[in-house]
């Protein structure tokens, strides 16, 4: 990457859920950047905090979730501290989102075109006719017959509804689109068609994407850089191909080893033993330690820190970076 300013900078983000069982820390001190036009993948299993992080960036966390620490900069401006009114104007114009349940994100009793009009008119002073014209153009861009502006959502298939949502996310030409499992509910063939379309649009319009999914193999194909989340933390971050060829964190290695391949010799793969931790009561030290094949008693005591072990490759694991460990050891023996 060049020395350009990042488009989005997330610094030390913490999100807590206040539940009757106590505070559950869903996102625990995560930091990352997204450069203009970059596709960054955020991967992890259900409950690891990836969707919560996305909602925090978009400023749409709802009770009982609360952002309790950190800052979010967009083009140098702190957006997390924006007043709600200003944030409403900012959202969608600069950062839009394609939700996981796009099937249900459309209003069932409004024609597709009218939903475009509502959305565009909330941000710009345009006539209904102009807004509908724009809707037709956008539908054409995502491969839907422009005449479908007058269709109701139930008249469209799942794949087409998802395309409508993507068109709506593109409508105001935002610099960043957050996509939260945009194709998970779709069949593989439709999934691939939509991803191809997103990639072409992205090349043409140069927006940045934060792509959230549990499907690591898809992410390696699709994104420039990948962050792996586990139990609320980023445990590894690197360029996509590098992460694929040389995963460092034992969790990343385990995830890579969880997908049977369609090519090459067939071999027994093992996945990861155990299951993800309960965030209301996370393990001490390294959160992955109960499932880690390299774990030693020391690692259950001391929390590993995310550090750069090669240019652009960050890992939070005691297997890497001996210096860090020593200082920790000293600190823990001293106390």
């Amino acid at each position, binding site marked *: 990457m060049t020395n350009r300013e990042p488009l989005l900078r997330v610094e030390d983000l913490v999100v807590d859920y206040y539940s009757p069982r106590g505070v559950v820390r869903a996102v625990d001190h995560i930091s990352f950047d997204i450069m203009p036009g970059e596709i960054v993948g955020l991967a992890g*299993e*259900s409950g690891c905090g990836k969707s919560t992080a996305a909602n925090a960036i978009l400023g749409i966390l709802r009770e009982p979730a609360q952002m309790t620490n950190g800052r979010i900069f967009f083009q140098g401006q702190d957006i997390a501290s924006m007043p709600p009114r200003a944030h409403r104007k900012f959202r969608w114009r600069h950062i839009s989102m394609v939700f996981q349940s796009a099937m249900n994100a459309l209003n069932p009793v409004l024609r597709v075109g009218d939903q475009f009009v509502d959305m565009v008119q909330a941000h710009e002073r345009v006539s209904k006719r102009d807004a509908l014209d724009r809707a037709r153009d956008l539908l054409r861009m995502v*491969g839907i017959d422009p005449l479908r502006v007058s269709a109701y959502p139930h008249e469209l*298939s*799942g*794949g087409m509804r998802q395309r409508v949502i993507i068109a709506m996310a593109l409508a105001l030409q935002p610099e960043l689109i957050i996509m939260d499992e945009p194709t998970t509910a779709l*069949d*593989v*063939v*439709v*999934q*691939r*068609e939509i*991803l*191809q379309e997103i*990639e072409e649009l992205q090349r043409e319009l140069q927006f940045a994407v934060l792509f959230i999914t*549990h*499907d*690591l*193999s*898809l992410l*390696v*194909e*699709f994104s420039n850089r990948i962050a792996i989340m586990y139990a609320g933390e980023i445990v590894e971050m690197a360029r996509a191909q590098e992460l*694929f060829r040389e995963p460092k964190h034992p969790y990343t290695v*385990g*995830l890579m*080893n*969880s*997908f*049977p*391949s*369609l*090519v090459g010799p*067939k071999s*027994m*793969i*093992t*996945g*990861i*033993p155990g*299951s*993800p931790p309960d965030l209301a009561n996370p393990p001490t030290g390294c959160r992955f330690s109960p499932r880690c094949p390299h774990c030693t008693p020391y690692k259950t005591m001391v929390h590993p820190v995310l550090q750069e072990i090669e240019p652009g490759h960050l890992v939070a694991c005691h297997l890497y970076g001996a210096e860090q460990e020593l200082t920790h050891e000293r600190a823990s023996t001293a106390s």
Partner: protein
Amino acid sequence: MSAQALPVEVAAPPVMRVEGLTMHFPAGGGVGPFGTRRWIHAVDDVSFDLTPGRVTALVGESGSGKSTVVRCLARLYEPTAGTIMFHGEDVTHLKQRKELLQYRAQVQMIFQDPFGSLNPVKTVEHHIERPLKIHHIVPRNEIHRRVLDLLSSVGLSPAQEFAAKYPHQLSGGQRQRVAIARTLAVEPTVLLADEPISMLDVSIRIGILNLMHELKASRNIAFLYITHDIASARYIADDVLVMYAGQVVEQGPTDAVLQNPLHPYTRLLLSAVPNPEAGLTGRRIQGRGEVPVVIDPPEACRFTARCPNVMDRCRTAMPRLAEVEPGHLVRCYLYPNS
């Protein structure tokens, strides 16, 4: 007998033979023109065998009819046509409760959603003891022992501890293991697994597949594995059937079908699977559209609308499922005998 030299695997006769299985449902919206009812062809003319110690995978997208096949085999539906032979007996139209009970004691089902298939107010032990009691598998005083054995055999140990837990205290993978232990309780010969891993976290999916692999060998179970994930079928299945719009378009030994896919739909499906080695670019797939719902279909191949190799005759007649190489069948006019 001279057959002694043959490996056991080859000699094992199928436990279940499905022949020409067809399931039509009345289409909503009442009758069509001239007062005729319209029919959804959910499954049309599907044939295959299930053999002890082998996994047969049924692969297809949503709407392809794969779950309907399973429900017919579990006799939750009574098929419109075709036969299901189980141990040489015709079970297609079993109606009496006693007969169905006997059948279901040997043909068990694993469901997709381990959150919905367990009773939230009952312990794990309760779930596993029920089939033992209903089907009188072991004497009463041995039930508890058997429950613990079953839990250990699906990798839930310490078994004593797991037996006392409630479903909400278990992870998705553990719940699915409980569901599997419950099916094993009746010592089934056939297990029908309908998308057993698609709702689980990615890191624990493979564990369930490995468990199925182990069980097919150790208990000589005939598995039918339903999935939309063709890579997982390659991982675990010995034979594969690819379904499209209610029909089998290609079937055969897993390696033959996946290394040398013949039907254009199988090729499309394979090319759509994410492949980190290749990347998206340069592998643009064509095949716009989704699996159609087939209502009173015309005489034509059902894949014509999306097929890159479509020919005139595909639109006027339905190709037969024909053997192209030993054991490898395909339904397409690109190949002889169709």
